[in-house]
């Protein structure tokens, strides 16, 4: 059974500290997060590779505006 959007987001947040914090949701603009930096992008790449077998480029991740945009890479 495929995971819900909430489960996928929680799993991503658990691996990427820059996406954790009070009030951070799927709609939060990533550019407004103080820890949305090159380290966070490295952690996102690792999460997608390990959890979903997807190798994303830094460019693909930087193009995402929100957490929901990040989840669009997961085939469902």
């Amino acid at each position, binding site marked *: 059974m495929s995971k819900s959007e909430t489960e996928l987001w929680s799993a991503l947040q658990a691996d990427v*500290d820059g996406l954790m914090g009070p009030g951070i949701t799927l709609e939060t603009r990533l550019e407004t997060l103080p*820890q949305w*930096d*090159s*380290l966070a*992008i*490295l*952690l996102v*790449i*690792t999460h997608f*590779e*390990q959890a979903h077998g997807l*190798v*994303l*480029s*830094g*460019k693909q*991740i930087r193009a995402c505006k929100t957490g929901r945009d990040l989840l669009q890479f997961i085939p469902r």
Partner: protein
Amino acid sequence: MLSSLSHIRIAGLALSTGSVTRDFIADGLALGLERAQLERISQTIGMKERRVAAAGITALDLCEDAARRLLDEMGIDASAIDAVIFVTQTPDHSQPNNSSLLHGRLGLSKSTAAFDLAMGCSGWVYGLHQAALLCAHGGAARVLLCAGDTLSRLTNPLDRAADPLFGDAGSATLIEKTGHAPAIHFSLEADGSGAKSICVPAGGARLPASLSTKQELKDADGNTHHAENLQMNGSEVFNFTLREVPGSVGSVLKMAGWTPMQADALILHQANRFMVSTIGKKCGFAPEKTPMDSVETFGNQSSASIPCTLIHAFGGPLQEKTLKIVACGYGVGLSWGSVALELGPIVIAPLQSFPKL
């Protein structure tokens, strides 16, 4: 390219590090960065300390020290060396090459061949392949492979994505022809389409150094550098290693007929602890077989990081017994190379700084 070469062995290893210790958090605080952010990076990526070369010391000096100590430890006279290969991207001069300078410093014979390989983090594996070829098919009995860099000199202190990573070191590896040794298996690959992912744009023939190439610019991540600095796209480099290294390691494992369980260790180029841990896992190796401590002490030492890790993690056992080792270097080029070999017992000169503290 896949290659298996027989009747060759590594007989000895030595490494000399820079003598100046730099602390990641202290350096960041001195630049006015926040402690919490520095601790976050230190814990996630695994950056603590690194050893850089003292003023006036180059990769040639570090490798010469390692080579002298190795030959002394092995009781080998310099006249017994048939070829010297110098792997570096930070030579003393554009001309002459470092191997010729080392040839002169060590007083090698005129019949000793000397050439450089301009390679970075994959360079020790590429250099080992060249040395093994010379012994297997090139008429050499002993080849001295020196691999080292002083990359800390190329980064901009205000480039926090690159500057805190690099340590300086020089290694010496003695390869010799032997009648009885299992084959050494190599996989050597490259992808020039990614050449700009790690690049020093100026200072060569294409864009000579000038006042304008020293003009500092801030990139999208807020890191400052100029055209003579080493510039690195960290996420693209990480991506390339995730994509390519497991297949490369898998190739040499298959050629050797080993599984990750049967190999004693996977020695990955020590880019940083996070990368080594992630890639080791993806290659199917248990964390205890993938040493990653040396990078937290010495930094990313470019082509010297694999010999450093062999000495740091397995120096004791390698002097007494044979270990099944898989090693992989990856980086600038982009290029990457893996090797599977039965290593040991070998002579190891103690790991130390130059000048000695």
